[in-house]
Every structure is written in structure tokens, then in C-alpha cells.
């Protein structure tokens, strides 16, 4: 590389870092004060981009029209943030944190469909900035003037935020609330107003980040989850709650990505390495590296536990007769049901195991995973590739697939159990995303974006009913096994570790080792679910390993409720059935699902099963 091309890549990276910083700073601010991991933050960025597109069309392509549109779009997104806070989140600040997460998932679904309805499914390419569409020549290379402006905007916003946070009463309140919001309340500060204002500022930053990208990036519906993943990475690398850290991390990641594109394909010692393919992964590699070396990010500090830990409710030992009766009932269904229902039930059974394995790790083992689809997807791909590329019989592929998912869990888990809380969750997301991009780009092996086709079961399982029984037996056994493990000494040790890591270690539990083992166990069983699913569909696509698949799993678990064993099964059934039923009737199934989830969140803050139990308990009390 010449000096000039290095400089060009550096400038490219810095320009990309500006928006990354804006959106991450907003996320960090909101998380710091409200402790809500706002999954809808990427959706706000997307709205900023779409909003700017429409407003420029309305105002006309003049400098005033362009900049007016950018600013107005950012402010409008700020208002959307206020709406989300006031209508949804404010009602559930006292609910468990995971439930707030579920609410923000629902908001993601709703916003995606609002965007689909308003702007359509086509990518929208925005205009270049009027008056800034020329290029500046630097060392013989041409750099868009707009990029240079973006490079300047990053530090300017950083400076303004710094002034706002250190020189105003609002800033003092925000920083105080980030440390101890209950005390801030006891000093007479209305938290609700503070939270709303923080949400506004954070959302404006997300909207501005999106709107500023209008000349550089087409508005499209995939931005929400792509951007939230990027923003998570930046916030975590920089340190949660640290604006300066977010700035530093945005620059590191923006520049690293730009260099990967710039370097392209090189040959080292006869091995061809495609750096441009690394672009999708490089930020997650940086994040994994940083978290292993500095578990709280570059400039972050250990998080203070914010709320008094409510003792987790007692898990009820599953009644085996109850489970067997259900299994028997499910075994009888194909006798009465049509082919369609049988296939749907097969899906439900697979997702039930997926959800139960996720519940095991996030509930009793206390390690929330945002990337559980990694193991589901690896299981699915392992099964498909063993069958198609290695010519193994289907039965062998099906049984080996969980072992391969387990192997990946051994590697990923080794890193993950070294962290806790949100950092752990983000690292699981990073590993899932790394797996996804490998699968997505390795055309010659995984089929790339097309996936793997012709993954059909052996002849004796070709009939849908026969395959349903296989799925029922395998997944049912997996679920019962996981439930049983929770009431073994291993399960008790995990729960002890979740409730009090220090005390658990003090009585001689090798907590990290146990958590690692749990990680591998659930990884293998999620892999089993993925493998069973793959053979039932006959094909595998990269979406089985995507963030969307991971969030689907989280929605299933949280919908049913983390606090009961049966919750995830009920959640998986309702989610899968509802999605199927709604998607058949409307293009806007996401909005309907999101609306339903929001209703449930607001009505049953303990999850469906927990909520029903509470209702039954109240009913009994009234009769007594």
C-alpha cells in the first residue's frame, strides 16, 4: 500500500465512523440512565435515513432543503423516541430488565413495518449533498467533500455532548442517574422526565446518524438490525456509558473496516486472504479481542448493580405425568390433523427445544445470550453439509450435528463465560454474527446467501407425519433432559452461581467451569433443534443463523416468561403459530406481532405463563 492509499482509507474510515459514533453515543446515553438495552435504536437510525430522504424530496435539493431535512429528520426521530419512552417503556421500568428488552424487540418489528408501509421494500438512494457533491483532491486522490464534512461532524458532536454533560444541570443529573438513579429520585428529581429527555437526546443522535448517511448509503429495511449490531459493538468496545469510549471505538472500527475494503485480496505465503470479505467480521473480531483483554471495554468501568436483586422465584419441578400426557397428546395430533398442521407442529417442536435451551442459559444459568441462533444455525448447516458435501447418511448427519454445534460452543463459550451481564450478551451476539458472515460469504462450501438445498431425510422419514414423530421424540427428549439437568447438583450449582457468584465460588463451586459446561450443553441441544429443523424444511438459509433468528428465540422465551420452565415452550408455540397465521393474511405480519407482544408486555409483565399463574392465584384467593 502506498502512503496515499493508506491516507485515503483512513479518511474513508473516519467518515464512516461519524455516524457510527452518533448512533452509539445515543445508545450509550440511554443505556447509562435507563439501563435499557434499546434494540430499537437501530430502527431509529433507519427512520432518520428514510425521514431525511422524504424531507429532501419535499424541500427540494437546495443546500437549505438538504440540511433542513437532515435536522428536521433527526428531531422527528427524537419525537418518536419520546413516544416509545412514554407509551411503552415508562410503564415497565419496574418490570424485569429482560422484559424491557422484549418490548424494544416489539418496537423494532412495528417500526420495520411502518417503514415498509410508508416507503416500500425497494432501496431508496438519496441525493448527494447540494453544494458538497464535488471531490477534494488529496495526494492525487479524490475524496468527496461530504466525507470531509462528516469527519469534522464527529468531533463537533463529541464536544457538544461533552459540554452538555459536564456544564449543565441536565448533564449532572444524567451522570448522577447513570450511577444511582434511585438516589437521584430521593433528591427530588422526577426520573420519568429525566428518562424522557435522555430518550429524546439519544434518539436525536440516532436519527442524525441516519440522516447524515443519506448521500452515502441507500435507505433500506435491513438497516435496523445491522445498525444495532454495529452500535452494540461500538458501545461495548468503547465501554458502556462512556461517550469518549464510543468515539474512540467508532474510529477504530470505522478505520479497520475501511482498510479491509481497501486492502482487498492479498496473497501471503501462497495463501489467498480476502480482506474485503473480512469487513463483515472485523468489528466483531475487534470486540471479542477487546472484551477478553478489557472486560468493560476500552474506557468503561465495572457496572454497579443497579437494582436490589429480587430473589428469583422458585422453579417448580416439572411434573413428569404432566409432561408425558402432553407428549401423548402431541403424538395423537397427526391422526386428526392435515399435512399443513403437521408441518407447523414440527416447526413448533424444533423451536420449543431452541427456546428451552436458550431459557436454560439465560434463566437458571443467568447468562443472557443475544446470539443463540449461532448454535441453531451451526447445527442446521452441519447437518446439511455432512449430508451433501460428505455424503453421510441422514441419520448420522442428524446425530453428529449437535456435536459440531457443541464444539463451536466450546470455543465461543470459553470467551463468553469470562464476562457477565450486557457484555456477555453482546459477545454472544458477536460470535453469532461472525458465524453468520462466514456462512454468508463462503459460497463454495455453504452456498453463501442461497444456502444449502436438498437436505431431505431418509426414505423412512420422508412422510411428514413420520418426520413429525422423529422431531417430537428428539426435541421432546432434549427438553425433558434439560429440565431434568436443572434439578441435578449441576443445575443447583448454576442457579447458586447466578444468584451469588461470590458465595458460590466460596463454597467451592468452579463457577466458570460449570457455566462453560452449560454453554456447551445448550449449544449442542440448540444444534439438535437446528438439525431437526433443517431436515424438515429440506433447505437451509443463512437466516437460520441471523440476528433475527436470535431475537425470535429471545421473544419466545420472554413471551412465555423466564420464570417458569414451561414458559419457553408456550412462547415458542404461540410465536410460531401466530407468525404463521398472521403472515398468511397480511404482508405486515411484523407490525401485528409487535403489537401483540407490546400488548402482552403491558398487560402481563411476568410473561404469559407467569401472568396466567398470577391470575389463577388471585382468582383462588378471591374464592377462598
Amino acid at each position: 500500500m502506498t502512503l496515499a492509499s493508506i491516507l485515503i482509507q483512513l479518511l474513508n474510515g473516519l467518515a464512516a465512523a461519524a455516524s457510527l459514533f452518533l448512533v452509539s453515543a445515543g445508545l450509550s446515553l440511554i443505556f447509562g440512565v435507563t439501563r435499557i438495552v434499546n434494540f430499537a435504536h437501530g430502527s431509529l437510525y433507519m427512520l432518520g435515513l428514510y425521514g431525511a430522504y422524504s424531507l429532501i424530496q419535499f424541500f427540494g435539493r437546495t443546500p437549505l432543503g438538504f440540511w433542513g431535512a437532515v435536522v428536521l429528520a433527526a428531531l422527528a426521530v427524537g419525537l418518536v423516541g419520546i413516544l416509545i419512552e412514554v407509551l411503552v417503556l415508562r410503564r415497565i421500568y419496574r418490570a424485569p430488565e429482560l422484559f424491557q428488552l422484549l418490548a424494544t424487540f416489539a418496537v423494532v418489528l412495528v417500526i420495520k413495518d411502518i417503514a415498509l408501509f410508508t416507503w416500500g421494500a425497494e432501496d431508496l438512494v438519496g441525493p448527494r449533498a447540494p453544494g458538497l457533491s464535488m471531490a477534494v483532491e488529496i495526494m492525487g486522490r479524490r475524496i468527496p467533500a461530504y466525507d470531509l464534512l462528516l469527519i469534522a461532524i464527529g468531533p463537533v458532536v463529541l464536544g457538544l455532548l461533552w459540554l452538555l454533560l459536564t456544564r449543565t444541570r441536565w448533564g449532572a443529573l444524567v451522570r448522577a442517574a447513570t450511577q444511582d438513579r434511585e438516589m437521584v429520585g430521593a433528591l427530588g428529581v422526577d426520573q420519568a422526565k429525566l428518562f424522557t429527555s435522555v430518550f429524546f437526546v439519544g434518539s436525536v443522535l440516532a436519527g442524525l446518524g441516519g440522516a447524515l448517511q443519506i448521500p452515502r448509503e441507500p435507505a433500506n429495511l435491513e438497516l435496523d438490525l445491522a445498525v444495532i449490531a454495529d452500535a452494540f459493538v461500538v458501545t461495548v468496545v468503547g465501554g458502556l456509558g462512556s461517550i469518549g469510549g464510543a468515539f474512540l471505538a467508532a474510529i477504530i472500527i470505522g478505520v479497520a473496516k475501511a482498510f479491509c475494503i481497501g486492502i482487498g485480496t492479498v496473497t501471503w505465503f501462497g495463501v489467498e486472504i480476502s480482506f474485503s470479505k473480512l469487513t463483515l467480521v472485523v468489528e466483531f473480531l475487534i470486540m471479542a479481542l477487546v472484551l477478553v483483554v478489557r472486560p468493560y471495554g476500552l474506557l468503561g468501568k465495572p457496572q454497579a448493580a443497579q437494582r436490589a436483586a429480587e430473589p428469583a422465584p422458585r422453579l417448580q419441578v416439572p411434573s413428569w405425568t404432566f409432561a408425558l400426557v402432553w407428549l401423548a397428546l402431541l403424538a395423537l395430533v397427526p391422526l386428526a390433523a392435515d399435512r399443513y398442521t403437521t408441518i407447523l407442529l414440527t416447526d413448533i417442536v424444533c423451536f420449543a427445544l431452541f427456546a428451552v435451551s436458550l431459557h436454560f442459559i439465560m434463566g437458571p444459568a443467568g447468562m443472557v445470550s443475544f446470539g443463540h441462533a449461532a448454535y441453531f444455525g451451526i447445527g442446521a448447516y452441519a447437518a446439511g453439509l455432512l449430508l451433501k458435501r460428505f455424503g453421510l447418511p441422514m441419520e448420522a448427519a442428524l446425530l453428529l450435528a449437535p456435536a459440531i454445534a457443541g464444539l463451536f460452543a466450546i470455543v465461543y463459550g470459553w470467551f463468553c463465560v469470562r464476562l457477565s451481564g450486557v457484555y456477555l450478551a453482546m459477545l454472544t451476539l458477536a460470535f453469532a454474527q461472525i458465524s453468520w458472515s462466514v456462512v454468508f460469504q463462503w459460497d463454495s462450501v455453504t452456498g453463501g446467501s442461497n444456502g444449502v438445498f436438498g437436505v431431505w431425510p431418509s426414505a423412512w422419514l420422508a412422510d411428514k407425519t413420520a418426520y413429525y414423530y422423529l422431531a417430537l421424540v428428539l426435541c421432546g427428549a432434549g427438553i425433558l433432559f434439560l429440565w431434568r439437568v436443572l434439578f441435578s447438583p449441576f443445575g443447583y450449582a448454576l442457579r447458586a452461581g447466578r444468584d451469588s457468584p461470590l458465595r458460590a465460588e466460596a463454597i467451592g463451586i468452579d463457577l466458570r467451569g460449570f457455566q462453560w459446561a452449560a454453554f456447551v450443553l445448550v449449544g449442542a441441544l440448540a444444534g439438535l433443534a437446528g438439525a431437526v429443523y433443517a431436515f424438515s424444511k429440506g433447505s437451509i438459509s443463512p437466516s437460520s443463523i441471523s440476528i433475527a433468528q436470535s431475537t425470535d428465540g429471545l421473544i419466545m422465551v420472554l413471551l412465555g416468561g423466564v420464570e417458569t420452565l414451561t414458559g419457553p415452550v408456550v412462547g415458542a408455540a404461540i410465536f410460531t403459530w401466530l407468525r404463521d397465521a398472521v403472515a398468511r393474511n397480511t404482508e405486515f405480519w411484523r407490525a401485528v406481532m409487535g403489537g401483540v407482544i407490546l400488548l402482552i408486555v403491558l398487560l402481563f409483565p411476568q410473561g404469559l405463563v407467569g401472568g396466567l399463574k398470577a391470575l389463577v392465584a388471585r382468582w383462588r384467593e378471591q374464592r377462598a
Partner: protein
Amino acid sequence: MAAAMLQVNDLHAFYGRAHILHGISLEVRTGEVVALLGRNGAGKSTAMKAIMGLVPPARGEVSFAGQRIERLPPYRIARLGLGYVPEERRIFTELSVMENLEVGRQAARAGVPVWTEEKLFKLFPNLARMRERPGGRMSGGEQQMLTIARTLMGNPSCVLLDEPSEGLAPIIVEEMGNSIRALKGEGVSVILCEQNLHFALGVADRAYIIEKGQIRFGGSMAELAANDSLREQYLSV
């Protein structure tokens, strides 16, 4: 007799499932310093948190300045002029002394002493010398001064002080006593949680003794000082 400024009636509170307060009743009149005495775990801190709304009361009534407050959120209670100084101090460690005070600032209230930073620095001269120092880099005694000063910035008419003498050097405890007497001199009412009877005797007008979440005694400091068996039964370690 002056009217009761703070009146607590049959207050019950839980931590999770543990029943901590079993119906306590007490009152504080305007300008009075009242000590709430008891051993570790007797329920003193919980009583304060329940009054302040930080632990939602399960049953009972709390009236402050003529208004029922047992269902209000903490910030509304604070805005009525009831100040709270937590036992753990809960200083904002990232914020400077001045910023800590800023967070506590509320508008002036009629008929109640108004505090400014300069007036507080006269009461706690140590703080004046470290205006820009982050709260996390102060000694325990300095933090204790700051946490009281921070609450006073809200111009309270009554302050709940949770174990202000805990873990402090004797000389600082003495200063603390002077500060509390100064508050009383300004007309601020105080409820003081204490295990240190000696300290309480020096500053309080009246005392309640709490044991296992119930009030066992209420009376003047003189009565308490004269009653050895009472002290023996509920306060000695």
C-alpha cells in the same frame, strides 16, 4: 405543643417476602431532633426508606406537612421538603462536590431555611476546600458531610439522617454533632437513626427505640438516660 410535622401510623414494610416493619408509629414535631435507636437489623433503615417511599409501605399511613405521602414516589416526597441522607452515603463518585450539590438543588420553599452552596460551606468548611474534587476521591467523613449538604440543597423542612456517625473518627463525629445542632438551630427537624447512644444523647430531644420492627419505647432523652434496664434490653450489644 407544636403540631406534628411528620406522623407515622402503623407502618408495615417488606423486603421481598421478609416482613421487616411490624406496624411502627412515631411523630416528629417542627424543629425537633428525634433519635430512632436500635441494634443492627432492628429495622431503623427500613423505617426511613419506607417513610421516603424507597421501600413501598405495605400498610399504614405516613403524613408529612399535612399531606398523606405513603403512596407517593420518592421524588414527590422529596419535593414536599422531606430530605433523606442514606446510611451508605451514595455520593455520586464521578461528580465533583459542586455537581453533587447541584443534583440536590430544589427551589426555595416558603417558611423553610434556604441553603446555598456558600452557606453550606460555612457549615462544612472542609467541603469548601475541595469544590472540584470528584466524590469518589474523598474520605468517609468528607463524603458524609457532602451527602448531608447535598440533601440540604433541596431546602428540606425535615431530614431523615441514617446513622451519620457510623464509621467516622471521633473528631468527625463531634463535628457531625455540631452540624446537627446547627440544623436544629436553623429550624430544620431531624430524625436520626443511631446505634451510638452517646452520640444521640448529645443531639436529640426525644427518642424511640425500635426492636424487631416494632417501637418499644418513646420518650424524652432524659427518661431514656434514667432507665438502665431499657438500655440494657434494647441497645447494649
